[in-house]
């Protein structure tokens, strides 16, 4: 087979789903290295955008897999603060062992994800609408229960050294340990999507749901599992932030909805499903975080960051469309194609 050798050519690299996001990342890195000076590229500078990237990245990856499978989950926006609050209430307010709080927060994500998945599968209502509903429902529940149980909307928690070490420490005083969790998530989901047979199911589901089901893929079970993994990852990010900051607030997650979706789309995932890669999502998240944080190292006002992100998103979509067309129309070289 000549596939192995072909993989390494420049052409085959450009036909990969992450080609556009790689070029985008290089472009913004160069841009901010020039305008942000040496501080941006320093270890401290890198920490500022890596830390932001890690917490977005942990939710962006399962969101990306959902999008590849043809679904969307915006309920993460309230699951993140719900995860924080659950941990803070259970282990902070009620002084339960931290593991109980962590388990409760993760279980909450799993249950809401299960609910999202079940409703989407049973009613065939678009997942955007379903998760818009649970976004508000969970936000209301979090606020209502917090006030009811603790009387406030902000709860403190004193995590022990083990919990801090696992989820809230700064490695070298700079880098949040969540970066390592992000890498772990990328490896796990990357294996599932690109190497395990289930990855093939996810691509097929996003390509054509009906044909995928007819081919024997348990599409409903897969859809539910994907929603559960995005729910769990959202509460994971929430609880790790509560441990990091030793406190939890009711409203601290809505920006994640757009940030994660932008990262995924910049990363080359097709909004309508069927195409994308975990590596691309990681690159898209890094690109987003660099723009988001890099602006503070430039002489420009931080308000311009949104403008850059908006332009970046549009450019990325156009670029990704172009590369996808190239990948689609790619045929072997003329000489080989004869007859």
């Amino acid at each position, binding site marked *: 087979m000549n596939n192995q050798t072909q993989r390494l050519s420049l052409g085959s690299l450009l036909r990969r789903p992450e080609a556009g996001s790689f070029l985008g990342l290089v472009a913004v890195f160069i841009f901010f290295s020039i305008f942000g000076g040496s501080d941006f590229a320093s270890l401290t500078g890198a920490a500022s955008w890596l830390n932001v990237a890690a917490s977005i990245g942990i939710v962006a990856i399962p969101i990306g897999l959902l999008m590849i499978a043809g679904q969307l989950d915006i309920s993460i926006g309230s699951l993140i603060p719900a995860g924080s609050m659950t941990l803070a209430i259970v282990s902070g307010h009620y002084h339960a062992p931290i593991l109980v709080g962590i388990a409760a927060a993760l279980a909450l994500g799993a249950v809401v994800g299960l609910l999202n998945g079940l409703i989407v599968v049973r009613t065939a209502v678009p997942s955007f609408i379903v998760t818009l509903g649970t976004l508000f429902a969970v936000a209301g529940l979090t606020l209502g229960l917090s006030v009811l149980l603790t009387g406030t909307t902000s709860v403190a928690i004193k995590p022990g050294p083990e919990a801090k070490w696992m989820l809230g420490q700064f490695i070298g005083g700079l880098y949040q340990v969540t970066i390592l969790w992000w890498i772990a998530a990328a490896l796990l989901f990357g294996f599932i999507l690109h190497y395990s*047979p289930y990855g093939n199911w996810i*691509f097929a589901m996003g390509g054509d749901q009906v044909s995928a089901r007819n081919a024997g893929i348990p599409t409903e079970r897969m859809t539910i599992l994907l929603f559960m993994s995005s729910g769990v990852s959202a509460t994971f990010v929430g609880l790790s932030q509560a441990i990091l900051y030793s406190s939890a607030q009711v409203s601290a997650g809505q920006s994640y909805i757009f940030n994660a979706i932008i990262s995924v789309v910049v990363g080359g995932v097709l909004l309508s499903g069927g195409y994308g890669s975990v590596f691309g999502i990681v690159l898209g998240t890094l690109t987003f975080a660099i723009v988001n944080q890099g602006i503070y190292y430039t002489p420009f006002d931080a308000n311009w960051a949104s403008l850059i992100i908006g332009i970046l998103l549009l450019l990325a979509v156009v670029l990704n469309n172009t590369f*996808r067309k190239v990948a*689609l129309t790619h045929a072997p070289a003329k000489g*080989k194609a004869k007859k």
Partner: protein
Amino acid sequence: MNPPLLKLTNVNKSFGPIDVLYDISLEVKAGEVLCLLGDNGAGKSTLIRIMSGVHTPTSGTIEMNGKVVAFKSPRDASEHGIATVHQFGGTFPLMSIGRSFFVGAEPTKGWGPFKRFDRVRANDIAVKAVQGLGITRIDDGDRLVGGLSGGERQALAIARAVHFGASVLILDEPTAALGVKEAAHVLRIVLQARRKGIAVIFITHNVVHALTVGDHFAVLIRGAKAADFKKGEKSREEITDLMAGGEHMAELEAEIESYMAVHDAP
């Protein structure tokens, strides 16, 4: 004599108050091509959806090898050996040839939780299967299905059905969107499948294509079987007339001509 591979007896289908198929009886034997002809809206697609497990008939029976069957789902029908290739062949345009070929039946290597999709083997088998049908242009299993021509996609879908051991192959208008050369190639592949002993149900409204590959013909008109005949029993003109709803094509042409003569006059 062997019973027919697939046999429909007095099949009716209604969607609520709308009757779509009336008393259809058909049979197809192994190594035979049955051509299903009919105008748009005649009910061809509905009929093949019944044979492929998408719809259940309102009344009537389906038999395979002489035994009555009732397909619960498309999956059930394909487990009975019925493979259906829908009009545009590959349904996963953004997947690679190797990956789409094995959707739902992925070859793996390794064990336990570390089982991996065996990309090299999948590509190898898929490429060999398509090349076996004479499409030697396809030699890279990593290519995306959406980049193949219409004929190549049909060939890939047929190769997939043959590979997974289909005994009945249903092709819904496989030549409709193709150029002359590509259509000829698909017709050749249909004959190859027939030679392998597969029963082929070939839907078309192109009489020439039907006559090229068909052993047996059935014409549907507004949901009823208007004719059922063997190769050589009817001429091309007779079949065209039949498909037009029994009206003589010649009469129709004359009518159009006189209409034009009146209305084009300055």
